[in-house]
């Protein structure tokens, strides 16, 4: 405990003599001037290493991100859930739902042949009432009833009831049935005019995963970039963490760079994880193997940098923590829906397509798909990269204006 009367001991306990102190100061000032121009000055009073500070920040930030539930959910969990869902439901291509009328004969060549097609899912034991209801809704594409002909030939009558609720599938079924009837009828008969001998060349199988995975990758990068960046810089500013940093010799550029390194690193690890899971669990096509992965990682890096720009803008615009999600959603949701994440933008009405074609995620998704499935290299997708770069320049110009340190 110190006393309230001070004079005596102060004089002797001075650590430096005045002359030495002054010299140290002069040296320190000179060292510091050197240090301003050069990052790795030799150790001395002013031997401050900006790289070390940046890396310390990157390490801290990376640790923090991996422990943040929202970062892990948005970067990994959500995209993986969508991939798993679409990976499973999208596997078999088209399926027709056909109900068999109650009381219909089941042991006949027509039903057997229908089952063999692989395109038709037959439901054999539904009630008449239920079938009618589901036909109206389009949950069943058609109702089929097969009856033995007591008068002889043809051996069976096949009655089909289509539904206007599912015309397209009905038409497919119609042609399947015609084909089937022809085959059944021509058993043991020589064709009189022509026999159609169709073969299919084995092309590259384009699975749903090949469309969905690049979209989910883009979505993962978008949400990590926008939400993550916005939240962390807002909270560092709000909780005076940045102010405390400013009391150390760290540069502002080191703070931004350290944070960026951590976030880009995390996003790329997430992207790699998604690609690997997609490839090994769901047969995601990587046409040139490792080269394709590397190209995708380069694209992901460009993407995350652009999206982080949006995050910086949001962190500057947000007045409170609760305004971050709505502002971020204004940026992410339209891209999520309109940038070809789930559906090809060609499926959108023509008036909507120009909007889709203005969004940066559209070009990231597009480039990713071209690289992964078509085996394009980075030069082939230069147009997409260029448009993302233009977005990047634009958004960082806005970020510089809106970003707040305090």
């Amino acid at each position, binding site marked *: 405990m110190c006393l309230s009367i001070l004079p005596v001991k102060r*004089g002797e306990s001075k650590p430096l003599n005045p002359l030495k102190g002054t010299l140290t100061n002069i040296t320190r000032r000179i060292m*510091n001037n050197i240090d301003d121009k050069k990052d790795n000055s030799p150790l001395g009073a002013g031997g*401050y290493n900006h790289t070390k500070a940046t890396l310390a920040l990157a390490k801290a930030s990376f640790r923090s991100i991996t422990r943040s539930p929202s970062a892990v959910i948005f970067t990994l969990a959500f995209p993986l859930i969508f991939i798993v869902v679409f990976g499973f439901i999208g596997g078999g291509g088209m399926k027709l739902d056909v109900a068999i009328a109650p009381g219909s004969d089941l042991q006949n060549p027509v039903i057997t042949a229908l089952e063999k097609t692989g395109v038709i899912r037959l439901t054999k034991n539904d009630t008449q009432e239920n079938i009618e209801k589901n036909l109206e809704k389009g949950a069943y594409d058609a109702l089929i009833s097969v009856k033995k002909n007591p008068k002889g030939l043809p051996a069976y009558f096949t009655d089909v009831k289509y539904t206007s609720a599912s015309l397209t599938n009905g038409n497919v079924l119609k042609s399947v049935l015609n084909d089937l009837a022809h085959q059944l009828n021509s058993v043991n008969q020589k064709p009189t005019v022509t026999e159609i001998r169709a073969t299919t060349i084995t092309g590259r199988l384009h699975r749903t995963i090949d469309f969905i995975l690049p979209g989910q990758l883009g979505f993962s990068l978008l949400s990590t970039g926008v939400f993550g960046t916005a939240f962390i810089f807002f909270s560092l500013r709000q909780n005076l963490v940045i102010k405390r940093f400013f009391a150390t010799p760290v540069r502002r550029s080191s703070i931004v760079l350290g944070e960026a390194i951590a976030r880009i690193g995390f996003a790329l690890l997430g992207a790699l994880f998604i690609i690997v899971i997609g490839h090994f669990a769901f047969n995601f096509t990587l046409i040139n193997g490792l080269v394709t992965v590397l190209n995708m990682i380069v694209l992901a890096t460009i993407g995350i940098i652009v999206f982080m720009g949006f995050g910086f803008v949001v962190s500057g615009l947000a007045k409170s923590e609760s305004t971050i999600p709505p502002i971020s959603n204004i940026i992410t949701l339209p891209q999520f829906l309109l940038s070809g994440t789930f559906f090809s933008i060609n499926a959108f009405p023509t008036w909507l397509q120009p909007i889709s074609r203005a969004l940066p995620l559209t070009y990231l998704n597009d480039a990713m798909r071209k690289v992964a499935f078509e085996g394009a290299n980075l030069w082939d997708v230069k147009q997409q990269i260029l448009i993302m770069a233009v977005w990047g320049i634009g958004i960082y110009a806005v970020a510089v204006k809106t970003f707040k340190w305090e």
Partner: protein
Amino acid sequence: MTDKKAIISVNNLVKHYGEFKAVQGLSFEVYENEIFGLLGPNGAGKTTTLEIIETLRAKTSGEVLVDGLNVDRDANAIKQIIGVQLQAAGYYPNLNLVELLALFAGLYGVDVTPMEMLAKVNLQDKAKAKYKELSGGQKQRFSIATTLINSPKIVFLDEPTTGLDPQARRNLWDLISEIRNNGTTVVITTHYMDEAEQLCDRVAFVEAGKIIALDTPDQLIDNLIAAGFERKKEVKAANLEDVFINLTGKAWRE
């Protein structure tokens, strides 16, 4: 007092926020290796003054030298020789104390062992805890640990004991005295006069952006008595806080 070497000299410091004149011509010196207290009501300009010396805030006019370095020109050199504890500052989210200290070591560009730093403020047990899980007193001790990382010449503490219970407060006084005894100058702001009287070698009273008194606590009290002041209540040999400490023990509980 003339044999003391000034480590901080503030000369005619002025700070305006628009129309509001937060600091209006402050001048004072802080001597090497003393505990210097800035006292005054809220909004008197204490924190603003501290933040200008800490190079966190630009001044309107005046001159501030810290260990011979000018705040305008040598801000970065000053940052390397001072340790700053901010009022209500938070720390990087999701990190434990050891990781936070490792971060600060990187920011200051020094090699320290986080556990040794925690030992200095008696927080070894909390090495793996997050900052927000600490009690008030522990938070302040941790904040002080972050100010000591770069072995600073001067440590600034802005209301470190506000909101603490008497035990935690006393514990912090011991820590602050120890820092001073190890050769570091301490500049502290506080609202508690008993604290200033016990802890500080010299105090300055700040009111409406001006210094209205500056001396040792003892001298200031003597001056007041010499001017004919008398307490209305008879002074007893102990006060209620002594009763509190006596009843609840001096050991701090957290």
